[in-house]
């Protein structure tokens, strides 16, 4: 039951953020779905008492995988899905606590929170990168066609 509530709220949170970022109207439900799936993976990992860095990594990984799938299917740039999907995973609470402890002149705790937020951003970045590379490799093996990962490779571009 808890998971269903989390899913519904993350769906609406992401979908309404899409309106603020002005995503094309027809893809807004898919954006919501991407955000909700990423959040559910993150939430489950946290409930299983795994380290938070792992949870953020897995969440970002799933978000990027789903975003690429939808980007291919709906012929819309991947950024539309990934931007809104990633927002729930931004460590806003940690950043807030960092700032709050600094304001209260509790510098040791503030630094701890800051370092945690920093590590999480690293996990975040690696999640996006890994999923992108793995997805492209997967598509390459399945289709053996031209993948958009080659657009990362400046030498092969446009051939």
């Amino acid at each position: 039951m808890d998971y269903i509530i989390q899913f519904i709220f993350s769906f609406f949170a992401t979908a309404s953020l899409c309106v603020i970022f002005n995503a094309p109207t027809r893809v807004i439900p898919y954006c919501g779905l991407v955000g909700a799936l990423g959040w559910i993976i993150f939430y489950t990992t946290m409930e299983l008492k795994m380290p938070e860095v792992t949870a953020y990594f897995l969440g970002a990984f799933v978000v990027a995988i789903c975003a690429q799938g939808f980007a291919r299917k709906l012929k819309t740039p991947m950024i539309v899905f990934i931007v809104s999907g990633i927002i729930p995973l931004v460590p806003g609470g940690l950043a807030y606590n960092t700032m709050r402890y600094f304001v209260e002149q509790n510098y040791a705790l503030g630094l701890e929170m800051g370092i945690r937020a920093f590590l999480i951003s690293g996990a975040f970045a690696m999640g996006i990168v890994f999923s992108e590379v793995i997805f492209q490799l997967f598509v390459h093996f399945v289709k053996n066609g031209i993948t958009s990962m080659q657009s990362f490779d400046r030498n092969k571009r446009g051939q």
Partner: protein
Amino acid sequence: MIYNEQKDDLALDCLLLAGQIMMESGAETYRVEDTMIRMAHSQNLDAQSYVTPTGIILTLGKQQKTKIISIASRITDLHKIAKVNNISRKLTLKIITLEEAYDELRLIQKTNYFLPFYLQIFMAAVSSACFLILFKGTYFDMPAAFVAGGAGYSALLFIQKLTKVKFFSEFFASFIIALSAFCAVYFGYGLEIDKIIIGAVMPLVPGVLITNAVRDMIAGHLTAGIAKGTEALLTAFSIGSGVAVVLVFI
């Protein structure tokens, strides 16, 4: 020969316009470069480009002209990115000609695709209330987060229109959010001020900048990645200081 020169001029303008619209709407740097090069190849032109978040340099070859365009402001407008992407796809598949593409790009540049302000503010308020639940807040706090998020976002839009200084409007918006959260708790309409503030601040978080900074870095655009990362950091800092101003007095 004269015809060719005109065509090259048109192509240069068209490519730069596409790049400018995408960059101003907050696309990734490597995507902007990729789109411009793809469009150039579809017209049998050999283009080279250098894209940064503040300007684009594009040349069509050794013997050809080079043009620079500067990018003053960057907002998030995913609709425009999708539109330009669509035009570039059509041009590459030769569904439309260069002239048609240029006209359509001009139209896209002029049009405002944003939804009306009241809808944006309402959506910001809804997402604030939803984020409160995601961050383990209580249902009792939802109206407070709703109002705080809406007030914060309308402050952002208003100050942005008034001053055009992005960091100041973010500072002021988070100040309003913290103030309304404090008032809600003070008058008994909310329980946890921390959760309300975190939920209501989420619509202001620079998610686009963070994602783009990371993805540009992977693609090898280190300059653009660092520039965007700095912008994200400054945004986070202005949001944090806006909240801190209120927290100091509690």
